[in-house]
């Protein structure tokens, strides 16, 4: 395995370099005026340990993205607290980074300039950082595309560039909001492998949101299954499959299949509730689930 050029300063202060601990305590979030308010997150509590990759999965429109905005500090909870490393979250911080659903790369910057955005914003355009940017460019397979603008990259490349742009900041917490949504099946698979490798190497506390159960099992240390809106944690499933993982082995693993059946059953229940409320997305899910169960 090749030596990773990680800036010394970061290595020193981030030791043991696993990132932060997150405690979400009885958090609720409502939108709208008093009396007409719609509660999206209700009394939601969970803890994410240092260096843990927690994948959150739940029916579409269940309030997952709201939870992300709360964790990132873009919005404040209506009640309850979010505590990261003993500090109350009151706004966005450099310690937490969000990778958004669709690309949020800056279109007017080259791949390299996008990756170096964070370090330059903090006045850290040092030789170490530039070397780290090189390493990341290699890791995500974009070394030949450093001078290209985002519009000149494919969908998968854009996602990889965005991962690199986040990772160079060595955040204590990484938050990924359905980062591989909308990619075709092959690209998605490839992206999951890229991401899993990066995670194994630069292990940090990570909060990963998806609607794809296979993706969740392939990546997660732990899966949180969310209820229908107003959302809270329905179940927490530990995924103790050895790392580095291999997508083929997982398909054949009994343990993975057991987790999958358990998770799907829970998700199905939540989708039914959502369906009863008239959600189109839930109807799709139920149909897909029934087909799968009938086949097996």
């Amino acid at each position: 395995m090749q030596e990773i050029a990680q800036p010394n300063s970061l290595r020193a202060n981030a030791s043991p370099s696993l990132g932060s601990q997150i405690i979400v305590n009885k958090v609720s979030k409502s939108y709208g005026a008093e009396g007409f308010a719609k509660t999206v997150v209700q009394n939601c509590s969970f803890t994410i340990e240092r260096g843990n990759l927690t994948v959150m999965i739940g029916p579409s429109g269940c309030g997952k993205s709201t939870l992300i905005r709360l964790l990132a500090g873009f919005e404040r909870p209506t009640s309850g607290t979010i505590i990261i490393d003993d500090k109350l979250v009151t706004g966005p911080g450099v310690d937490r980074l969000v990778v958004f659903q669709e690309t949020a790369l800056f279109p007017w910057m080259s791949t390299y300039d996008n990756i170096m955005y964070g370090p330059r914003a903090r006045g850290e355009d040092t030789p170490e950082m530039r070397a780290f940017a090189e390493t990341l460019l290699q890791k995500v397979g974009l070394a030949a595309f450093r001078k290209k603008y985002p519009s000149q990259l494919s969908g998968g490349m854009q996602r990889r560039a965005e991962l690199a742009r986040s990772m160079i900041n060595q955040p204590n917490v990484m938050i990924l909001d359905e980062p591989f949504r909308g990619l075709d099946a092959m690209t998605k698979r490839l992206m999951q492998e890229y991401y899993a490798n990066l995670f194994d190497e630069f292990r940090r506390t990570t909060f990963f949101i998806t609607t794809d159960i296979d993706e969740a099992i392939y990546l997660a240390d732990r899966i949180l299954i969310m209820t229908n809106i107003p959302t809270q944690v329905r179940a927490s499933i530990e995924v103790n499959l050895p790392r580095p993982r291999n997508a083929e082995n997982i398909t054949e693993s009994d343990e993975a299949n057991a987790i999958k059946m358990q998770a799907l059953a829970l998700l199905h229940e939540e989708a039914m509730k959502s369906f009863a409320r008239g959600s189109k997305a839930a109807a799709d899910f139920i149909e897909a689930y029934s087909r799968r169960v009938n086949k097996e």
Partner: protein
Amino acid sequence: MNWLRTAGTKAALFITGEEFWRGIVAIVAFLIFWEVGSRSASLFGIAFPWVSQVPPPSAVALAMYYLIQDPSFWVSAYLSTLRVFEGFFAAMVVGIPLGLAMAVSRTFYGISFPVFEILRPIPPLAWVPASIIFWPTQELSIAFVTFLGAFFTIVINVIGGAQSIDVRYFQAARSMGSSTWDIFRRIILPAVLPSIVVGATVGVGITWAVVVAAEMISGGGSAGSVGGAAGGGLGFFIWNSYVGGSYTQIVAGMISIGIAGYVSSAALRKVGNLMTPWLAEG
């Protein structure tokens, strides 16, 4: 020398292209229609409506041939160009910061936008009399009206461009540790740049339309001091040709304005493309 070869290849491709020939055919057909229509009374004994009143392109071409050898025509063209540049430049210098300020500050927007929106629909030409009264010289009056022509378009485009910036860019920048100044410089400015280019390209066209009319109405600005009657700019030149009954010169003057407007817009578009390389295709 490589770029020269590339440019040569591009030009060769362009000339052999279907697009190019379609354009040539259209222009030639238009000129024939015009020439025949203009001479319809003597050719067919029936005067075609409208087009028979216009001097034929051959006569206009002849007039233009003499015109481009006349220094006073170039003084006119120079004066109009200068006024366009002054007004346009002032509109950029005032309009871009104003638009950005209105987009960035909610308070400033609340104060300035209503006034701006009341003034915006007033046609620049309606400002001509007031402008002549307000400004000490004719020259300044014309430049001011020209300024107004581009100003509102530029401001509206800057505001629109800044307001449509994806909120995730700000969230991403902030969570990576950007200061407010850094966000302004590295996010807002480049994000608004394409809208500025659009505003400027449209604005310069309006500026040409306005300067010519302003010159006609105000009697040619510094006409008395520079080069006699022809010193008043292209607008005054056309008006003067009308008064003197030289219809070929009217059309020749119109065509020179069309060419000047086209060149200005094309130059701005070129500069704009160079400034926004990320919008290029491929």
